[in-house]
């Protein structure tokens, strides 16, 4: 056994991926990410099992588990459920102790969180009723453009002509892409317009939490790996954007941190 009872786990069941982080006294021991699918208990068992195997630990070594994300209530072995907003803030505060502004862009959810210097949530805003401005938007667009979603950001950076795509609805944007393809618009230009669209959505979300004027943005969630989004947000907001080494597991990390307090 390692960690003398201080090992905690955070499990973040998102709409697209499920993440587990094992945290010990001296930092992250291991983590695992996989598609959520339709069987949430199975997905969580798998990510947790994989993390335990990587760290050479067993379930009994874990002192506490906090689950978070949309599927948080369906995890039978967690000690407590805490929303992804609080967990995300805790994770970001751990990595960037001076951060006061977080933008998390997940599969079907994007949120802006304003926090104090102690990592406590002061205000938050989430996308309402619609997946425009989320990872799903990029996923649908990438499928339509026949581009790997991981490559969509890089593709957009090669754009030479500026065009505009509606930012109001993912499904309508998809039909717009089809019309643009039919008109032989370059896919790089379409990709750039899509990023502009998602960027303006996120910019609106940031403004709705009234961030401190010079606060830097910590960008988390799977979409934070998209370099075009990072550049775009820096340009639109005039703020520096910082991305953690592994942005997708920040919320699960926050859950593991909060699990220390639970026990």
């Amino acid at each position, binding site marked *: 056994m390692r960690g003398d009872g201080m090992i905690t786990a955070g499990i973040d069941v998102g709409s697209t991926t499920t993440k587990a982080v094992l945290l010990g006294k001296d930092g992250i021991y291991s983590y695992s990410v996989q598609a959520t699918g339709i069987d949430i208990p199975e997905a969580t068992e798998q990510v947790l099992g994989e993390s335990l195997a990587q760290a050479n630990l067993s379930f009994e070594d874990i002192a506490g588990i906090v689950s978070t994300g*949309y599927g948080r209530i369906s995890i039978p072995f967690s000690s407590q459920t805490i*929303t992804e907003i*609080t967990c995300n803030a805790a994770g970001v505060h751990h990595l960037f102790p001076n951060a006061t502004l977080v933008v998390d862009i997940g599969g079907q959810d994007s949120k802006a969180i304003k926090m104090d210097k102690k990592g406590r949530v002061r205000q938050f805003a*989430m996308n*309402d009723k619609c997946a425009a401005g989320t990872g799903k938007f990029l996923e649908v667009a990438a499928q339509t453009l026949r581009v790997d979603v991981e490559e969509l950001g890089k593709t957009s950076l090669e754009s030479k002509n500026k065009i505009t795509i509606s930012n109001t609805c993912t499904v309508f944007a998809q039909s717009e892409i089809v019309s643009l393809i039919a008109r032989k618009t370059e896919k790089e230009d379409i990709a750039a317009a899509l990023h502009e669209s998602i960027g303006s959505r996120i910019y609106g979300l940031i403004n709705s939490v009234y961030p401190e004027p010079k606060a830097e943005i910590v960008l988390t969630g799977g979409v934070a790996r998209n370099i075009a989004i990072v550049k775009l947000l820096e340009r639109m907001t005039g703020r520096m954007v910082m991305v953690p080494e592994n942005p997708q597991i920040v919320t699960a990390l926050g859950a593991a941190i909060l699990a220390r307090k639970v026990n």
Partner: protein
Amino acid sequence: MEKILDKFKEFCMQPYDRAVEWKDAEPNRKVIGCIPMYFPEEILHAAGVLPVTLYGSDEPITMGEHHLMNNACHQVRSTFDSLLKGKYDFLDGVAALHVCDQVRFFLEVWQLDHPFPFFHEMWRPYRLDNTNRPFLTSELKRLISHLESFTGTEITIEAIRNSIGIYNESRYMMRKLNDIRRERPGIISASDMVCTVTSSMLIPREEHNQLLRELLSRIDNVLTPEDQRFKMVIIGHLCDAPDEGLLNLIENEGLSLIDDDFITGGRYYAVDVNPDGDPIESFADYYMNMIPCTTYHYVDCWRGDSDKYSPYADYTIDMLKKGQAAGIVILRAMYCDPFDMEFVLLRERLKEENIPFLALFIEKGSGSMEAVRTRVQAFVETL
């Protein structure tokens, strides 16, 4: 007590059954539908008419969408949908106070497309001060004479005073019930409180008063476990009753709603009408002394020494202090422009005063309850 609350809930679930039954019981009885908010029901009551408030429905809007712009609020679209589906066929007329432009325009479409024997739109000045009082009293007189010619019966001063007394008793009992809720959180759920007030606007008021009297006589014997939840006030300028599931969700996630300013709540029973003196003047006073509302302006709002002055913010903060609540939940009805404008001032004040608040955009029949749950839980975690 539970049985009476269940009864109130039944009235809300079948909102017009009792009105239809009442109308059919005797010949020549008339029922008039009132569009929320603030229509002087007492005057209809004094004319021997049963006023019922029209709240639309929770059903999907399948017909109303084609007649109105889809950026009209849900209450307006849903009410029009109910009209087109024949749910208001039992009505003899429709009456409304001009509270916002959406209500005004949809009523004009209503009157043109589906005229009713009695149609009355009462105009209330936006700016409530004494310079407009003569206009307000003339509007009250116009309503009375219109009703007299519709029913063929004179509305006497005694009849109006009697009706005012019945409605004042109703408001008094609702205020008392709310006082008990504030003092003993958890004794009545927010959704039951809303059903209690909403049902009063759907059935003969004397019957509702009788049920409320019984409820209040039994409430002292009801035991409530210590409420561990955070005390909250809930506000929002909804013209219809807030969704029962939404209120239950908020209360089940660790917040105890102890006061509100809904039109199906505090806003409805806050102010009485003076039962003595000239009834016209009493109603004018009633409108002048109404609690702050985003659909009209007080003279104080025009005093010019501060652009940010919001009597509504004062009112809600007082409500919070009175109930020693930890914060405010704000329900923002989608496409309600009067409240959207007020919300800006309100939010600034709440931030200045460091009052925790959660603002939720809501629209009946749309949006995900799970997304709301996450917001409510996250808010609770910040407290």
